[in-house]
């Protein structure tokens, strides 16, 4: 087994371009890396390419050009088994949630844990914790198509966090939330990050990153600018 790369970067983008057919250049020749345990905010105007970047990381989209390495592996050369493993280790809260409408809140959150064959007892405990953290305990047995947008959003976040994954991607996680619920989400993210999860959060919401010293990747017309708030 090769040793972990010295840079300890968990995500590496090298000259990545994403062009949607026919000619929408969503990302243009961008390079950056994200180290293990970092919390990174992805900002930019609507249509800037934030979702596209996250989709590239979880290989929902393929880059048109360039190299993407996740945990030291070229995502383009991954075998399906490795890709499955990667997806199991990457929690994603999608901008459009991607919940199962006819399944309950509980069933939706349980899915990633069932996929990794977690013990039922542990699943139950984990869900109880997440529901509490997202203030959804009373909605446990409700079908997700009966929930408000904000509630659905929190279910999506709970599902993304379910496996306490090493990597968590959140696309506009507070877009539909009031300040109280936003705080719940931020608290959960902070706790996960402190426990070692690498976080990438795409957001318009200045309130959740302006006070922090985390790295910010700003996308503008397919180009990125990295602001490193950290003192170092």
């Amino acid at each position: 087994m090769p040793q972990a790369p010295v840079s300890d970067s968990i995500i590496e983008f090298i000259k990545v371009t994403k062009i949607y057919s026919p000619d929408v250049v969503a990302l243009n020749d961008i390079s950056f890396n994200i180290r293990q345990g970092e919390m990174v905010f992805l900002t930019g105007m609507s249509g800037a390419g934030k979702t596209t970047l996250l989709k590239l990381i979880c290989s929902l989209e393929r880059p048109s050009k360039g190299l993407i390495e996740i945990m030291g592996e070229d995502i383009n050369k991954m075998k399906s088994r490795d890709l499955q493993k990667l997806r199991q280790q990457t929690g994603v809260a999608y901008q459009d949630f991607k919940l199962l409408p006819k399944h309950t809140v509980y069933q939706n959150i349980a899915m990633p844990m069932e996929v990794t064959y977690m013990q039922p007892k542990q699943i139950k405990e984990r869900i109880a914790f997440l529901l509490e953290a997202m203030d959804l305990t009373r909605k446990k047995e409700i079908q997700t198509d009966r929930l408000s947008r904000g509630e659905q959003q929190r279910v999506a976040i709970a599902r993304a966090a379910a496996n306490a994954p090493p990597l968590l991607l959140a696309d506009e996680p507070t877009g539909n939330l009031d300040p109280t619920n936003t705080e719940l989400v931020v608290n959960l993210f902070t706790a996960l990050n402190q426990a070692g999860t690498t976080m990438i959060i795409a957001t318009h919401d200045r309130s959740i990153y302006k006070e922090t010293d985390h790295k910010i990747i700003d996308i503008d017309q397919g180009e990125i600018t990295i602001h490193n708030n950290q003192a170092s």
Partner: protein
Amino acid sequence: MTPRYILIQTGRNLKQTWGTQIMTLITVSLSVFMFSFFFLVYTNMLNTGERLGDHIRLIVYMENEVPPEMEEQLATKIRQFSAVEKIVFKSRQDAFSDLSEQLNDDRDVLFDLGSDFLPPSIEVYPKRDLKSLTHIKLFSDFLANLPGAVKVQYGRDWIERFGSFTQLIQLIVLCSGILLILTATFMVASTIRLTVVSRQNELEILRLLGATKAYFQTPLILEGVIQGITGSIIGLTCLFSLYAWIKIKFAGPSFLEIFTLTFLPGSVTFSILFVSVSLCTLGSYISIRKFLKI
């Protein structure tokens, strides 16, 4: 992998498409029932045929006695045409002593006639199997054309009819076997397809969550296996009930003496079960290969 998940998932699938599941189950059971029914009839006819075979022999009456040195040659020729149990050459003298033995106390009537009025003959005992039963007519024609043969005599024509009836049953067994293959494979394949289609949305999300091939497939395969097991058990149970009912209903001594009814041997029953389950599994596998894109 936890069996629990597989069971839960399989349960969900069955629940989601229960109407079609039941239709499939009925079809599979019916096919198994039909096939095993005809197979049962067939094996019983074979048994009966074998018992009948004990009484079957062809007697070839000869113009002249076959000289001992020719016997071997003739026997070889007969064997070349068809497998036989045994061949017995009877001289005029043998025929006479047989007859007088049969007549027993009345044998005096024969004395005036002399010992050589009966023709010499060859007794041919065909192999006791279905083939010789169905070929008996052909065989007798062949024997009649042997050099020196005058006439061939064998059991009544019901033997022929029995033979062709058995052949018919054989054909029906074959057809119902093909039907079983088709229904088990295609019905199961189409229900699995329905399951896959009805859960497309869910499968899509599971894919995003990194579900493995096994996670998707195992419950679907199990669905096929369950259809196979339940279907063939129901089919075979129905057959056994029918068998038991007939056995009680026609328990008269006369009937059972000629025609002893027996159920399919355990090995055959098990084989039918095994084959049906395999076919259903194959059906679900085909469907998975075709419709489940991972």
